[in-house]
């Protein structure tokens, strides 16, 4: 039996077989990260987080729990915050991916959220910070940062084991003003 129509074309450009020859063979994956196109050959199991860190060399996105519970791997897909650890790299194709490395301007000027995190001394160990900042940028853009209660609720997917939460709240509020005025 041959494969039904081409709409089922697999990422490997091979027909979807019941017993494909080698499931471990790398597949071509194209990712657009911070405006740059990357052509990779990846094991199909590779998560977006591992593709960023291990294959592209962007280690700003952090691996905390690797099971969708801590938010340290938060990145933006077309501006929407998602978890890199629970996204297959192959499924992130076609999106514009933003990591912490892509947030500052081309001239190196920090994003208002990055500056706010410095101004409010939000760093302690710093491990959750890239995820916090990307999540916070999206939180403001979504319109979920209007009140303190909203910010706490909509930032709850980013855990900070140093418990810098009061400073995170202050930073989001400062950046919100600048971002909304922009």
């Amino acid at each position, binding site marked *: *039996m041959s*494969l*039904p*129509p081409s*709409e*089922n*074309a*697999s*990422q*490997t450009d091979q027909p*979807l*077989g*019941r017993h*494909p020859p080698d*499931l*471990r063979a790398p*597949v071509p994956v194209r990712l657009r990260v911070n405006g740059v196109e990357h052509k990779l050959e990846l*094991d*199909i*199991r590779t*998560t977006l987080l591992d593709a960023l860190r291990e294959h592209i060399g962007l280690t700003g996105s952090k691996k905390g729990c*690797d*099971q*969708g519970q801590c*938010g340290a791997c*938060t990145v933006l897909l077309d501006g*929407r*915050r*998602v*978890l890199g650890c*629970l*996204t*297959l790299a*192959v*499924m992130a194709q076609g999106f514009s991916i933003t990591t912490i490395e892509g947030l500052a301007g081309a001239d190196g000027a920090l994003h208002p959220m990055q500056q706010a995190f410095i101004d409010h001394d939000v760093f302690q160990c710093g491990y959750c910070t890239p995820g916090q900042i990307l*999540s916070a940028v*999206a*939180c403001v853009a*979504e319109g*979920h940062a209007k009140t303190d209660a909203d910010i*706490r*609720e*909509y930032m*709850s*997917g*980013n855990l900070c084991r140093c418990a810098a939460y009061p400073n995170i709240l202050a930073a989001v509020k400062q950046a919100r003003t600048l971002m909304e005025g922009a």
Partner: protein
Amino acid sequence: MRPFAYTKAETPDAAVKAAVYALDGETHAPPGAPVQFIAGGTTMLDLMKLDVMHPRTLIDISGISGGIEIGEGGLRLGALVRMGEAADHPTIRRDYPVIAQSLVLAASQQLRNMASLGGNVLQRTRCAYFRDVSYAQCNKRRPGSGCAALQGVNRQHAVLGTSEACIATYPGDFAQALIALDAEVEILGPRGMRRLAFAELHRAPVERPDVETALAADELIAAFTVPAGPWTRRSLYLKVRDRQSYAFALASAAVALEIAGDGDGGAVREARIGLGGVATVPWRAREAEAALRGKVLDEDSARAAAEAAFAGARGLEHNAFKIELGKRTLVRALLEAARMEVPA
């Protein structure tokens, strides 16, 4: 994680065709089937990393668009709509607050941006004995092996709808809103579309805890439909958990009320109640609904309804607290719903 074949389907029909092809005539209950659909992946990849699920083929349906349609007759939510999109929808928030709240009180915004509505209702239990393959006993994971939770640490486990085979809690929130509002499911399969009452989608773990739904492995949830009713605006979702946000329910209640004179101390015409965090499947509390009909909603009538809801509850060593917690959660939800200011 074990290797798998991957293919992307651009349409629901293509996804079903791909599943039929990849299944190659094998029949399986979907949770254990070797061919799985993946949309947000938030449950699937998590369980694949843990080796609880190990499909040989993943069919990517994340590129299929979903849509939200609202009409006189009710609501139609495409299965590929992301949780976050439905939670923020202004008409759903106003006319079906129990749905919006059940979504926004679940997971985190990152997960809600990823997870589809269809995948959300199929989310699998958080039972630690299910999620950790080093435990030999789990009837969901290894049919016939027994249930380690019965004699184990069972604080998170269910008190309603349990059996000697399984006490794992159904973890979702959105499903309680759907079951309370008499939603239906549109299911696409190789022989076309069929409809099912949402209440018949999940199966209580009687003899086969590994068979969690009425779906076949080659069937795809296409949409949920929610009928309009005079109770949908006076509705809410109350979720009680160990921390204030980003946690699974210890007890939750989805309630929708129609009150004579519209809230002015009149009698309850209609009550719709779903319970979460306490049951093995999305739970409709029909006994509690019947107890409220015709009564003025106050502390006493709410308490009587809650007693009816939990009359059949069975607590174990660590989870018996959920019986009283569940009752109090329902009482508070009912009283808060009765007091809601409902827009005309």
